[in-house]
């Protein structure tokens, strides 16, 4: 084992140790395991939210797209800011309702709002499906880090398996407390590593950031702008909108809002978090710096650019620290995703079939499901050929379909019925799944749309979802007499 791998494994051991320590002294019932007793202040909620968002996607995916695609990468910098703006109004409403009704998960929220465990079950299954590609992002990232840092001695398949095992063990021992503490170390390390690389590489290799951009522009004119076809302006706008709207629809993000002490904590965070987005900028710089330094990485391989350029430039111990930061950037969000999927399957799918299940048993079953979900995501990781950003966008297309049902449920006068909500979500998800699996592009089907045909599939599905949701709700609306009787 070389020094780089050794450093990475020391950090893994440290993360697991912190997870075990954080758990001590607290009775881990379901409320503690999942929402930390709703006692987190501004700082911890910030760390949790930041921790989930800055994942191996930031680290490897953003630099990979900067390397391979240029201009379209800038969407990554844009959507977070818009999501945080929305969060100022959206999240306090969600938080308050969740607290009043003692909810643990996103599915609980829909069950409670629409008075339907079946709808909760549908939502749960959709979110678990959406989380599989997101988990695959983390696993694939871990695989890349471990195999690159081993200087080729560990195959990427083996590395993915090691990564999956590490995340699984971590989740089983720690729950959310481990995530919060490891978040602290992770955020410091990712910040330090990305900013260091993002500044060091352009200056060392090109003599400055401005010089780097000019040199790349000279060699690849137009690389930094959006092309007129494919990832064009309509693609950019619809993708930013899709990801900004879907940002808080992820069940683990939705769920971490529940852990806040009060609504002000959440609103305060809406002012800090956009600035934290700028960390992405340095990841872009790394990817751009790699373009002329390690040329020739094609397609999915672009995700390797950050590590390849580091391997060429630095000593193994520094590569080890970079890899360790990447490991934590995959471990924290990966553990959240895994824990959330398992809890949701246990609480909102299994218990929906068997309502007599005790809370204790739901907790036990959730822990048992962790390795099952991990295995499923591992198989998906090893068989998929999408790059990290495309994997995440696929997850977003699914999860954003929950937005209309959520939005209307927050209105004091919600006309949407459980049938409308369920039909809308299922239609949206079916359209996304069909378009992705068959590789359908709107522009190919309707050439007359021109560049408007580059609109993100997820947004197309969202519009149909909305129409179905409204239509079905009006058809299934209880008659006036029934409504008056209920009121």
């Amino acid at each position, binding site marked *: 084992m070389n020094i780089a791998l050794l450093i990475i494994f020391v950090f893994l051991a440290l993360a697991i140790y912190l997870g075990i320590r954080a758990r001590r002294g607290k009775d881990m019932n379901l409320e503690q395991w999942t929402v930390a007793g709703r006692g987190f202040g501004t700082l911890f909620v910030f760390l949790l939210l930041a921790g989930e968002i800055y994942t191996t996607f930031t680290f490897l995916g953003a630099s990979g797209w900067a390397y391979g695609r240029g*201009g379209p990468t*800038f969407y990554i*910098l*844009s959507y*977070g*800011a*818009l999501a*945080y*703006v929305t969060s*100022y*109004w959206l999240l306090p409403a969600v938080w308050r309702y969740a607290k009043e009704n003692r909810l643990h998960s996103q599915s609980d929220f829909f069950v409670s709002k629409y008075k339907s465990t079946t709808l909760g079950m549908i939502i749960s299954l959709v979110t678990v499906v959406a989380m599989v590609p997101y988990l695959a992002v983390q696993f694939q990232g871990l695989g890349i880090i471990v195999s690159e840092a081993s200087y080729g001695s560990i195959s990427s398949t083996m590395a993915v398996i090691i990564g999956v095992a590490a995340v699984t063990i971590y989740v089983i021992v720690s729950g959310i407390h481990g995530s919060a503490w490891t978040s602290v170390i992770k955020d410091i390390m990712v910040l330090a590593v990305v900013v260091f690389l993002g500044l060091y590489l352009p200056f060392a290799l090109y003599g*400055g*950031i*401005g*010089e780097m*951009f*000019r040199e790349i*522009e000279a060699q690849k004119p*137009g690389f*930094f*702008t*959006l092309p007129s076809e494919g990832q064009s*302006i309509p693609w*950019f*706008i619809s993708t*930013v*909108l899709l990801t900004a709207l879907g940002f808080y629809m992820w069940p683990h993000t939705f769920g971490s809002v529940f852990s806040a*002490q*009060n*609504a*002000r904590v959440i*609103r*305060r965070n*809406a*002012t*800090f978090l*956009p*600035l934290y*987005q*700028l960390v992405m*900028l340095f990841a*872009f710089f790394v990817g751009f710096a790699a373009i002329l330094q390690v040329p020739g990485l094609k397609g999915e391989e672009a995700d390797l650019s950050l590590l390849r350029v580091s391997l060429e430039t630095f000593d193994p111990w520094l590569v080890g620290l970079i890899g360790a930061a990447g490991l934590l950037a995959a471990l924290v969000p990966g553990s959240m995703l895994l824990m959330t999927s398992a809890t949701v399957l246990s609480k909102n799918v299994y218990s929906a079939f068997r309502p007599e299940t005790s809370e204790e048993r739901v907790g036990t079953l959730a822990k048992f499901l962790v390795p099952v979900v991990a295995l499923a995501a591992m198989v998906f990781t090893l068989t998929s050929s999408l790059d990290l950003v495309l994997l995440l966008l696929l997850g977003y297309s699914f999860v954003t379909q929950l937005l209309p049902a959520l939005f209307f449920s927050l209105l004091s006068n919600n006309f949407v019925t459980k049938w409308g909500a369920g039909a809308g979500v299922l239609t949206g998800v079916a359209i996304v799944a069909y378009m992705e699996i068959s590789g359908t592009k709107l522009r190919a089907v309707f050439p007359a749309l021109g560049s408007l045909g580059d609109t993100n599939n997820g947004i197309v599905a969202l519009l149909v979802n909305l129409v179905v949701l409204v239509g079905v709700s009006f058809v299934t609306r209880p008659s006036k007499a029934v409504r008056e009787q209920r009121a």
Partner: protein
Amino acid sequence: MRLIYLLGALPFLGILGGIIFANRVEPFVLGMPFILFWIVMWVVLTSVIMAIIYNLDPVNKEDEPK
């Protein structure tokens, strides 16, 4: 609906609407291609705008029950 909340629409206009005009490399600003500079500027402005909203919004002055 408080009037101050309308400020929250600005980042959407700046980023989603602005991109139509900002999709260009020249002029370079702070060393960055114009499109990147434009987005970075709006991310910073978003933080400023949200801080203004937070500070002027009376909801945040009230004592909330824990």
